[in-house]
């Protein structure tokens, strides 16, 4: 590290790093210099000049902006001289000439209550109460902390611009803007979207979108980053915009496995009103996404379960917890262990999931226990045999240092949004991006190489990449020889992966395979993000192992900025697996078949644990439908009845003889319940989530429980006791966590007290271990990575008889040269656009379709009975026969989420699964407005 710099600010000696600016050094030292356009974690900009200070160096005295001036040895900085103060006053005075300023200048500021209506002191357009950020505005805080005694400016110009209140989630009022440009900068520098821009210049410069278009067409991903940085009321969340926070707590977002740290604001009526990305968050660096920012308020919604209920004479009736436990125990006891199952919620804390696992195994005697959204367990479990850990190997923000990122069959910008932010940052910094996906997704915009294999041939394609790496000697020989086993066996199998053959099977040209392999193999470090969105069940374990082979071969395991990241869903799917809410593993990934390991946990629990693996969540849902499983406990918070991958879950639940549901809201999943436990939501519990980089993080309770809702662990422990189980006398979530730490080695050094100071990445076996950011960073004594032999396979070509085509539906933020109309309905904007359908010319010839014809794509009916239909104009650009592709705009998703009537909208946000479809030519509708595509 470079030599530190010492200098003085207002006679106080400061030590700073050489690359810091004066304001950064002052902030680190706890000193305040007023600023407006500066923002931590963003590049200095120097627009507002509010942070001016007097500097003296080598006998020269200057007035400089402290946000852009680097620190230097022996510099003397003065922030409070009379000149500086008068300069700041003038700057604020100028700024106010275009900002409604009643809230800054009115002589009654100290006298008025926040809700008082002002009648005569300030004119209507300038009143403090017309601003949604009144009383919580950074501009006003700045003025107050400087103790500026402002008066109305002589020349005040009200811009009188129209307010933008019809886009999803955002209200924009540029009359309140002070042109600090933070929103534009965060959108460009941090999120890389450039959905906002600085328009015009000098006196008329203002932020906004290109010619004032809707955010729906400007490439906005609705992450809310611009709202979080706006120092005025110009950008606000529409929901709860007039609400004031009473308390603020640090919590964890419960919508996806990134585990973003949020500051949750709760008002005095016990509602969670705002979610702001925590700048200190290690997992998210202050960023959130459309779900976390705008769809986390579901605990506030009316209609929640307040009391336990049980079915009496066919009707659900309110009851007490004791009676509910008894009724539930009664119903479960009647069935044999093989006939019951326990399913954990994707939003269940580690504590909930641990108790669920213990209840299933120690009390109900079954291994039929899984987390509901652990639908693709092969993503992580496939790594146990190759890497030794069933989790991502590296940390999320290491990705910004990757020189190449390979994204395989996953869509992180929508499903694990903030994970894509460092990927885009790496791309902006020149890293190569390789996307392997038939669908066009947001990351294909950044891709240097976009490979579109025939869906289902991914294993063969990865084999082809490995073959090129070996052929061109791009492997990391030292790492492979010293740290891994099994290369020879792999190399023998590689003879089959002849590029001509690989290319024929996957449909990807040889050159593209070579270029992609070189991009990945020759970059150091290089990371892989992989999902299973297009991967059939039979290929999944092999694909995970193939990905591990590729990463090991190039030495990208244990390397900072490299690694592999499985793209699963569910906020705490990782944690659920870690703590044994899994049919095959006990807490700490002890296999249920491992008798020695099992014995240790049996001793801790004082109970017998069945030794054969149970059913996974997908298998449980199937067994419910065919009557094999007769009774179940379902933790349903965070599940939508029609969620993709769950099959027809409501119908399966209906078949059950006995069902206990723990949920926040009534919905189709709880209609058939015999007993209902009212659930506390993530905002109302204390507990831990583990995110996809293995970071165990503490949720703080922000909202009070008003009625009889209980956290999951407490309800399940009560049920266990009613069933006669022992060892469930927990007083708090912290107690449960202490027990987890005692049985799961990787969690051994953790406790709620320790996590209150910040998340820790497992393995953290002891209290003095700092946790592990990068697995295998040094030779791991516990596990030696090994290669897995691979076999080439022909294309599966599985098509359902009546649905001969596969639809690869993609979604992007921005397609500038396509005609987009924005239509307003009920005061909200919606996208209306004609779509293109990509069809292969040979298929089109068979169907008698010409380029430019309009076709209808009709998909196989969904489990719920609905049939997705898409229409569009044909282009012959599909990469493969049998594959049709369409690309729609992300804005449609945002509009739908804004307009949804579901109290908990986030789980219902549709993903982009492959669908079996039939394509038919239809007549172009003659009437204007009839061709609404993609609906």
């Amino acid at each position, binding site marked *: 590290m470079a030599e530190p710099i010492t200098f003085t600010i207002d006679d106080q000696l400061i030590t700073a790093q050489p690359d810091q600016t004066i304001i950064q050094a002052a902030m680190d030292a706890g000193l305040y210099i007023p600023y407006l356009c500066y923002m931590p974690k963003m590049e200095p900009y120097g627009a507002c000049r509010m942070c001016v200070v007097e500097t003296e160096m080598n006998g020269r005295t200057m007035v400089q902006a402290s946000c852009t001036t680097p620190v230097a040895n022996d510099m003397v900085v003065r922030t409070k001289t009379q000149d500086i103060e008068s300069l700041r006053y003038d700057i604020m005075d100028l700024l106010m000439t275009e900002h409604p300023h009643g809230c800054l200048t009115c002589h009654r500021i100290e006298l008025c209550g926040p809700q008082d209506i002002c009648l005569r002191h300030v004119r209507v357009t300038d009143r403090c109460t017309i601003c949604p950020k009144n009383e919580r505005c950074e501009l006003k805080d700045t003025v107050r902390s400087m103790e500026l005694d402002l008066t109305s400016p002589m020349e005040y110009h009200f811009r009188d611009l129209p307010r933008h209140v019809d886009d999803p989630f955002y209200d924009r009022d540029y009359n309140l803007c002070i042109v600090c440009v933070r929103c534009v900068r965060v959108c460009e520098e941090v999120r890389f979207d450039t959905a906002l821009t600085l328009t015009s210049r000098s006196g008329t410069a203002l932020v906004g979108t290109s010619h004032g278009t809707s955010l729906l067409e400007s490439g906005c991903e609705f992450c809310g980053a611009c709202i979080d940085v706006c120092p005025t009321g110009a950008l606000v969340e529409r929901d709860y915009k007039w609400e004031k926070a009473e308390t603020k707590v640090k919590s964890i977002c419960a919508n996806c496995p990134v585990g973003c740290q949020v500051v949750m604001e709760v008002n005095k009526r016990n509602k969670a009103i705002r979610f702001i990305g925590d700048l200190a968050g290690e997992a998210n660096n202050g960023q959130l996404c459309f779900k976390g920012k705008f769809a986390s308020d579901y605990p506030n919604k009316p209609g929640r379960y307040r009391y336990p209920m049980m079915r009496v004479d066919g009707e659900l009736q309110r009851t007490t917890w004791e009676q509910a436990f008894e009724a539930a125990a009664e119903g479960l006891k009647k069935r044999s262990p093989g006939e019951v199952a326990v399913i954990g919620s994707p939003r269940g804390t580690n504590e909930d999931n641990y108790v669920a696992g213990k209840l299933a195994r120690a009390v109900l005697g079954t291994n039929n226990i899984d987390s509901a959204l652990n639908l693709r367990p092969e993503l992580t479990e496939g790594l146990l045999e190759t890497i030794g850990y069933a989790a991502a190997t590296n940390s999320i923000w290491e990705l910004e240092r990757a020189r190449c990122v390979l994204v395989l069959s996953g869509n992180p910008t929508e499903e694990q949004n903030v994970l894509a932010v460092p990927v885009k940052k790496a791309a902006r910094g020149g890293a190569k991006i390789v996307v392997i996906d038939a669908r066009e997704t947001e990351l294909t915009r950044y891709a240097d190489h976009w490979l579109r294999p025939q869906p289902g041939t991914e294993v063969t394609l990865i084999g082809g990449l490995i073959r090129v790496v070996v052929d061109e000697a791009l492997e990391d020989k030292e790492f492979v020889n010293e740290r891994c086993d099994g290369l020879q066996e792999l190399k023998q199998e590689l003879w089959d992966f002849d590029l001509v053959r690989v290319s024929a099977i996957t449909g990807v040209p040889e050159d593209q395979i070579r270029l992609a392999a070189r991009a990945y193999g020759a970059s150091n470090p290089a990371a892989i993000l992989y999902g299973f969105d297009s991967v059939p069940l039979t290929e999944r374990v092999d694909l995970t192992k193939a990905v591990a082979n590729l990463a090991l071969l190039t030495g990208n395991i244990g390397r900072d900025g490299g690694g592999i990241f499985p793209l699963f869903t569910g906020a705490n799917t990782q944690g659920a697996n870690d703590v044994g809410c899994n049919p095959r593993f006990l807490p700490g990934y002890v296999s249920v078949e491992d008798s020695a390991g099992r014995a240790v946990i049996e001793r801790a629990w004082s109970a017998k644990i069945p030794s054969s693996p149970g059913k996974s969540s997908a298998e449980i849902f199937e067994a419910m439908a065919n009557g094999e499983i007769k009774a179940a406990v379902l933790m349903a918070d965070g599940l939508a009845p029609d969620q993709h991958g769950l099959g027809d879950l409501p119908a399966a639940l209906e078949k059950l003889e006995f069902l206990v549901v723990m949920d926040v809201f009534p919905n189709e999943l709880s209609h058939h319940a015999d007993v209902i436990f009212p659930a506390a939501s993530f905002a109302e519990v204390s507990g831990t989530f583990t995110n996809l980089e293995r970071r165990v993080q503490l949720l703080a309770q922000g909202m009070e429980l008003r009625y009889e809702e209980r956290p999951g662990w407490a309800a399940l422990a009560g049920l266990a006791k009613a069933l006669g189980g022992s060892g469930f006398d927990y007083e708090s979530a912290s107690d449960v966590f202490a027990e987890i730490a005692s049985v799961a080695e990787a969690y051994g050094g953790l406790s709620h007290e320790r996590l209150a100071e910040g998340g820790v990445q497992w393995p953290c076996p002891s209290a003095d271990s700092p946790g592990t950011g990068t697995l295998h960073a040094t030779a791991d004594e516990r596990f030696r990575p090994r290669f897995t032999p691979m076999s080439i396979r022909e294309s599966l070509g599985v098509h359902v008889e009546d649905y001969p085509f596969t639809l690869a539906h993609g979604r992007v933020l921005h397609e500038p040269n396509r005609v987009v109309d924005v239509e307003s309905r009920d005061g909200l904007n919606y996208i209306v*656009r004609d779509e293109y359908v990509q069809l292969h010319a040979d298929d089109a010839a068979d169907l008698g379709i010409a380029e*430019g014809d309009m076709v209808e794509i009709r998909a196989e009916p969904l489990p719920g009975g609905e049939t997705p239909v898409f229409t569009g104009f044909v282009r012959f650009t599909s990469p493969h026969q049998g594959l049709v592709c369409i690309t729609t705009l992300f804005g449609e998703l945002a509009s739908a989420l804004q307009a949804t009537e579901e109290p908990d909208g986030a789980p219902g946000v549709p993903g982009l699964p492959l669908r079996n479809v039939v394509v038919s030519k239809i007549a172009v509708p003659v009437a204007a407005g009839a061709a609404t595509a993609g609906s």
Partner: protein
Amino acid sequence: MATAAPDSGDEIRDRIRNVLQGQKQDTVTVLSSLLNVQDELHYLPDEAIEETAAFVKSTINEVWSVASFYTNFRFTPPGDHTLEVCWGPSCHVMGAQKILKSVQEELGISREGETEDGKVTLEYNTCLGACAQAPVIAVDHIHMGRITPQHATSIARELQSR
């Protein structure tokens, strides 16, 4: 919505795409693209921003921030004829204000811009570079010096009837 394939037969987009793809210089930038489009169309419609964004693999917002910065770009169609009135110091001293007033009265507008019928665009010019001839106006970029208010009025009238 359209009743034919999107974008097909969209004449203005075709013209813009031709201009963008026809750029011969070594370095093609946002600015060069916009300038070339404006040379072709004499203004930048929304389609120009969108097509340029797609052409340089950028976003409409980035292109707009460049376009809106330069006062030389215009975003509405110009009139059939331009009438520039110099209001530089020399012309000012020699009575440019009177010229301007008579022209505006004749055209029925009170500031820069197009007449209601779109026939004439009036522009203020800070110096047309012919101070010895002050006051100066330019009709469709052709200079005319030593103009009197009466003469200016008749020129404006004639332009409107052309």
